[in-house]
């Protein structure tokens, strides 16, 4: 699972930017698997059609830990749109995800 890219064409949510998300994991730990699962679910719910997810396993690419300034695992990095955001953890709390990404709940 070196780099899994998921791209979905989808409806616009008022933003035309395609979100570029990178999820750093280390192997197949429970936390990492949960993060991948939670991220996919979140994106489908709130960013359908305008996101890219790249999952990077640092055990395979240890160099990237330094290059991308990663300490905690799992870490989700949003490079685009600006500003750069990092969310660490298994992403189990959707509300915190919304706050972290400055998003409003899609629809009540």
């Amino acid at each position, binding site marked *: 699972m070196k780099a899994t890219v998921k791209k979905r064409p989808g409806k616009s949510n008022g933003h035309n930017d395609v979100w570029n998300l990178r999820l750093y994991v*280390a192997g197949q730990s429970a936390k990492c698997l949960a993060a991948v699962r939670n991220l996919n679910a979140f994106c489908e719910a709130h960013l359908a059609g305008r996101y890219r997810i790249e999952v990077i396993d*640092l055990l395979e690419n240890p160099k990237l*830990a330094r290059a991308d300034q990663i300490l*905690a*695992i799992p870490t989700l990095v949003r490079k685009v749109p600006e500003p*750069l955001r990092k969310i*660490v953890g298994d992403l*189990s709390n959707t509300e*915190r995800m919304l706050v972290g990404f400055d998003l409003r709940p899609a629809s009540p």
Partner: protein
Amino acid sequence: MAKTNGAGKGTVAKLAKAPSGIQGLDEITGGGLPKGRPSLVCGGPGCGKTLLAMEFLVRGATEHGEPGVFIAFEETSDELTANVRSLGFDLDKLAEQKKLLIDHVILERNEIVENGEYDLNGLFIRLGYAIDSIGAKRVVLDTIETLFGGFANQAILRAELRRLFRWLKDKGVTAIITAERGEGTLTRQGMEEYVSDCVILLDHRVTDQVSTRRLRVVKYRGTAHGSNEYPFLIDAEGFSVLPITSAGLDHVASDERVSTGVARLDAMLGGAGLYRGSSVLVSGTAGTGKSSLAAQLAKESCARGERCLYFAFEESESQIVRNMGSIGIDLRPWIKKGILRFVAARPSGGGLETHLALMHRRIKEFQPRMVVVDPISNLVDAGVMRDATSMLMRLIDFLKTEQMTAVLTSLTKGGDQREETEVGISSLIDSWLMLRAIEIGGERNRGLYVLKSRGMAHSNQIREFLLTSRGIDLLDVYVGEQGVLTGSMRISQEARERVAEEDRVRDADSKRRASDRRRRALEAQIAVLRAELEGEEDGGRRAVAGERDRLTRRREDRDDMARSRKADAGKEATNGRGGVRTGART
């Protein structure tokens, strides 16, 4: 103090140690930091944690063949490189040679949102990759507590730190973890709880506006270590802790004597001068000639071709050279030849410990045979009294171990001649030359005596100490009714004695002449008497001869008569004898 000697011996257990390469630190810790384990270096901001850690890596890479990884949480690689360049460390070159790897960890709290469970595997992977890529044996985490600012979940952090240090041990790297000092605790985040093998505390204190850096090994599991606070320096040559292995009494005492260059002073010191490697204190009130005497000893050392290091805390080099030139002590040639070196500094330029650490370093560099500190009393201004004593003790012990003669001057305050020094180091001193002002007859003159001098039969006399244009001279003082006489009173006393001597000579002369005269007169009398005697003897002889002639004539007459009377010859002879008697009566 009892533990001090243990440093350098590592008595308890043979712990493998990684030499830090930092001057003095390895002596205190008995060989370095625990090899393959993490050590904690803590202290307040600006106390030198980062520098100590960096020097540990650089020395490891350059001197001990151990590459190192520096994980910087606070400074960028470029900043670090620039910061230590002034110490002569070329980090870029070391990085090029794969001996050093600097990884700057950026933590922006406002960039990070925490959501659920996480761990610090990213850091582990990063560190592991860095270690493996250059085969590092040493690791520095500076300052890992920054993590507490970057992440909110304390429970996770603490568990991860515990895991990190265990992991470092498993990796077998010698690590330094730096941490900020907290209020009333060693570190703000209680790092000592995780790193417990070796804890070093750095301190940067300001007392009376003078700053002093100190280092203390708080804890070193399984090894004897110096437990005192040791001053340290950060200067152009890096980090150095004042070594204290010399703080013992195991130095060898030399039998060699060195001349003071003043014959009469040598004579006072058991006839041969000072012992090499002994400590000499020259104390006295202001203006008694302490510096001059110290300069004389320095000059004499140079004249023997032995290097001398002169620490001047009161005057500049050129001022001392000029002043000493005026009393016939020319120091310039020796300075030019590089045998004499001055280190002039204001005592307030740093703390006492800083000064002493600096002195240490200069002494190690220059390797002199004699060290002059002029004066030590000023150093007290730079520190607290009780510190001063212990620090000077270390300095003196160090000099003794190195067999360097120490000449210390000390200003005695107050008009009284006190036989104690401000610094209270008298017990450390081998030879104590006391200079005192003698004020009598409207004059102030200098007197010198040997208060004590260990290991020699020294003089108990006070001598007048003269500073002439041809150098130092010592003269006898005269003990008069008012005490000792010096200066013009001595000179007038000398004059009086000279006159008296002349008088005595003149007296003796005239007495001799008088007795000559008497002798001659008596001899004349004797001559007259003898002449008289001779005259009388002469007369006597003549009378006897006349009588004999008369007797002879009478006998002849009688014989003639007898011949004519034809008398019996025998009978007539008896009568004749009677006749002589009769004749003599007439």
